């Protein structure tokens, strides 16, 4: 009872888009795909959707190959936002719902409900080209879920959304999760992943470099992170001199240091107290996903090393 991607490989000419990728995504789970541009996230999603066929490997949902699963199983929010520019929002959404077998009346009702929830009910009769990009994105999200799919695949759903709209979308995620849907999405935004996902996979050049629950991934290095702030000493120069401790980041509100495996992070607090510091903040945590991502993939690459096209229409 899960979405299983088994040993998938896919080449586009010279480019190895996916190289023996295997993943297991539990039903009802929120799953994050992390990876630089061109890592293979979009290709993986298209293969799950059976829009592309892999060179080798299989995808199964609840034990059945994806080529035999009904299309209505999937809800897809593509990375490249696209709607029929001249078509009214309501007509457009009802059209997509109908293609998935939803009855027109029901589609209209559901659409209006979601527009309400996204606080854009007045856009129902506007043409798509009259909407801002953020609002078009919300329309597309509605298009992806109107037919009540079991699995939602979303490619960079938060890109280009302002914090308010991102918040609305996160609420919608929660709603879908509460309805028992399986959510898979890709993103660059590590905080979003930490906030929403139970499990993740980090892809690099078509390979899964690390995967599992967010907790396990963050603990996978064995290192721990301490965050320390003391009164009257923003530098905390002595911190780096402790055995097995390396200062990784200095911020205005605290200093962050990595504690190597085998060393007790409690010792940091102890030595602060020994030095007579007044401790304002002390926290032991696991390395952030961003650190792990950078460790595995290198710098987050924002350059266009991607197969995905640039959007042609705005």
């Amino acid at each position, binding site marked *: 009872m899960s979405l299983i991607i088994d040993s998938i490989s896919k080449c586009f000419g010279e480019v190895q888009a996916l190289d023996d990728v295997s993943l297991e995504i539990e039903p009802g789970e929120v799953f994050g795909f992390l990876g630089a541009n061109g890592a293979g996230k979009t290709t993986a999603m298209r293969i799950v*959707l059976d*829009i592309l066929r892999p060179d080798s490997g299989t995808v199964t949902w609840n034990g059945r190959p994806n080529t035999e699963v009904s*299309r209505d199983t999937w809800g*897809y929010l593509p990375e*490249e936002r*696209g*709607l029929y520019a*001249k078509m009214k929002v309501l007509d457009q959404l009802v059209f*997509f719902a109908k293609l998935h077998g939803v009855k027109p009346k029901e589609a209209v009702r559901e659409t209006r409900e979601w527009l309400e929830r996204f606080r854009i009910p007045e856009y129902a009769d506007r043409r798509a080209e009259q909407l801002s990009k953020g609002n078009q994105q919300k329309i597309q999200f509605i298009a992806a879920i109107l037919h009540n799919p079991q699995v939602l695949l979303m490619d960079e759903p938060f890109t280009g959304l302002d914090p308010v709209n991102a918040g609305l979308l996160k609420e919608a995620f929660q709603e879908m999760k509460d309805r028992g849907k399986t959510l898979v999405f890709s993103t660059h935004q590590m905080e979003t992943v930490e906030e929403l996902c139970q499990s993740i996979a980090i892809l690099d050049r078509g390979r899964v470099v690390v995967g599992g629950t967010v907790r396990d991934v963050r603990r996978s290095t064995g290192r721990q992170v301490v965050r320390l702030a003391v009164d009257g000493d923003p530098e905390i120069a002595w911190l780096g001199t402790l055995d097995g401790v390396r200062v990784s980041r200095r911020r205005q509100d605290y200093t962050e240091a990595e504690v190597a495996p085998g060393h007790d992070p409690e010792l940091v607090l102890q030595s602060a107290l020994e030095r007579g510091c007044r401790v304002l903040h002390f926290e032991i945590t696991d390395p952030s996903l961003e650190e792990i991502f950078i460790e595995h993939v290198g710098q987050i690459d924002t350059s266009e090393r991607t197969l995905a096209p640039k959007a042609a229409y705005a």
Partner: protein
Amino acid sequence: MNGWRTLLPNAWYVAVREYRSRARSRSFVIGTILLAAIAFVATQTPVLIDYAVGSSQTRMEVVVRASGVPSDSLSVLNQGLNGPQASDPNAHETYVLSWLPGGDVTAAQRELEQGKFDALLIVDRDPTTQDLSFLLRTDLTQDGGAVKAISSALTNLEIEDRLVRAGTSTGAVLAPYTLQVVPVNSSASKANSISQEISVNLLSTGLIVLIFMAIITYGTWVAMSVAEEKGSRVMELMLNATTPLQMLTGKVIGNGAAGLTQYGIILAAVVGGLVAQGPIHQAAVGSSSAGAPFGGLNPTVLAAFVALFVLGFVFYSLLYAALGSLVSRQEDVQSATSPLMMLIMIGYFMSIFGLQAIDETWVKVASLVPFFSPYLMLARVSMGHVEVWEFALAIALLAVAIAIALVVAARIYSAGVLLYGQRVGLRQVLRAARVSR
């Protein structure tokens, strides 16, 4: 395979969407109105020409200096020029005669030069033979028809005069008579009539142009709508909701129906224009025009036209859709579809030349080839130079070609729609088509 899931209802939903968005677009509405207006005006060309020339009346003054002309001379002339046996009945011309017995030649000459009249006829009697002699002053000599008509009417007058002088006077000599023409058999009469041959030729050319225009215009619409979907990235949403085959079918049907709607409106304007031609001519010029512009159009030709039109359109639209899926922007549609354009042009010119060589072997062979049969078979059918089995074979081959085009186009389409970027080469498409669903 998913690609071969049932076509309905999704193909239908796609078709309806395509039709609506096409028919509601400003370019469609404006284009249809404009084309219909142009078509209507075009049907009034004969009226316009007559009106512009304005010479449907020839005003002629007749100065009679001869003595003893027959008392019914004026009516004989009138009969000869304007009556049913006039030598130039199709000229739509009427001759208005001013009869001036013993009139003043100098005064009449002046009026002629002032343009009050188009011709001056002076009637004298030859002193030696006692026959009537005629002098015609006019610039109508360039227009042979008028002079011929006048001279033939004058022959009647001369005969009448001689009969009167011979004492055989009778006003009934030149009374109208009827001549009934009965064809020997229909095909021979068709072949015999040159004017009908020309009219059939015109009809064939007209029907070929109709198909040609429809395929190019509305085929391009299909390609455009595919490219637009790809350009706006709706394609990815659509691909999750439908299969390429459903999309392809819906697009061809939707755009085709929109095209046929526009065509129907334009044709209605043409028919309306032709019907209105007579009354308009009457009102504008003062006489009704003769002529049947659709000579040779019979139910058989019409049925063949509809069949070839629909099948040819579907066939080419599928190819247009496949090619449209290879480009990412609407601007590139033109260049991507140019090979198809060439093919269509070749078929078109073959059929236009073929009209003059309708019984040549190459015409017969090419009229069975699906790429060309919509034109060439239509040419043969409208010229009446075709066997039933040949027509049936051409239709059957076209239907098979459509089935093949559907499969090939769906493959290219499903591969092409996800290939973005620069123009896609044939090899890339074939490779992609092999691995895609």
